[in-house]
């Protein structure tokens, strides 16, 4: 198999830079993969430019970014969330902020805006976050822990939302949510410690 020249590799590196990968280790993999794909086509008699065009149409910037995103989701133990979840979370946050400001200014519709924001946060953001976690939680134990977290966070958020609207029972929900979140924290910590020891 013929190897690409310096200039050609530089061209590919420049095009790869458009994907703005933050994972350097993955960049090495992708660069080599792209080079191999081009070299294979050149071995079949294609000229470099045609091969490069074909390869980048097969594996464009968006696909490369998706690979990095998927790698992050698989390798990070941290809170994982997809773009969709982030957008819903942002919408909820904006609605809640606007609702809160409106409430302070005694503007009509403040309660509705705040309420919709809280409901979006609970049944949109938190629920999708749970689904994202479920995709990457392997065992039923991990899934159960994520579910407990969702339950606690939902209850806490709903309670806070109700509190601002001066609804009865809100403090019970906040208390219940807080307690569940504490249980969730303790369980996940003990699981992490056990995993670390084994």
């Amino acid at each position, binding site marked *: 198999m013929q*190897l*690409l*020249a*310096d200039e050609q*590799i530089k061209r590919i590196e420049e095009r790869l830079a458009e994907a703005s990968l933050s*994972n350097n*280790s*993955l960049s*090495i*993999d*992708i*660069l*080599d*993969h792209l*080079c*191999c*794909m081009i070299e294979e086509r050149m071995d079949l008699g294609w000229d470099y430019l045609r091969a490069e065009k074909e390869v980048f149409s097969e*594996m464009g910037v968006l*696909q490369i970014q*998706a*690979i990095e995103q*998927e*790698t992050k*989701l*698989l*390798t990070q133990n941290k809170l994982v969330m997809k773009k969709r979840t982030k957008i819903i979370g942002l919408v909820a946050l904006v609605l809640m902020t606007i609702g809160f400001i409106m409430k302070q200014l005694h503007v009509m519709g403040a309660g509705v805006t705040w309420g919709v924001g809280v409901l979006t946060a609970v049944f949109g953001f938190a629920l999708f976050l749970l689904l994202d976690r479920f995709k990457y939680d392997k065992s039923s134990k991990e899934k159960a822990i994520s579910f407990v977290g969702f339950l606690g966070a939902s209850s806490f958020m709903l309670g806070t939302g109700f509190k601002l609207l001066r609804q009865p029972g809100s403090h019970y929900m906040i208390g219940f949510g807080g307690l569940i979140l504490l249980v969730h924290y303790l369980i996940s910590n003990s699981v992490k410690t056990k995993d670390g020891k084994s």
Partner: protein
Amino acid sequence: MYSNELVRGTLKTIILQLLGEQNQMYGYELSKLVKERTQEKIVLTEGALYPILHKLEKDKLVVTNLEKVGNRTRKYYALTSNGKTSAKEKKNELLEFMETLKMLMEPKPIMLCNY
């Protein structure tokens, strides 16, 4: 070509198995080998391959080794001792699963006794 749904659950096993056969392999080599051996019935896309390889590295089932190839760097993946054990376990599990599926999909006719 098989559907992604069918292939997804077996990718880790396939990668571990192939790495177990060779001393070390790089990503493109792995995808090409899978394509050739399965007569393109299983295609290991980049979008599936690299996230799994990085996950295996994080789980310490594979180690990487950087080598200069021409004017670029190539990353080779090789199994660790844990990776070798995991490859064997996963292979056995998959073979057993295939047998079970066969039992399910092609049941043997039940012998009825006439008294």
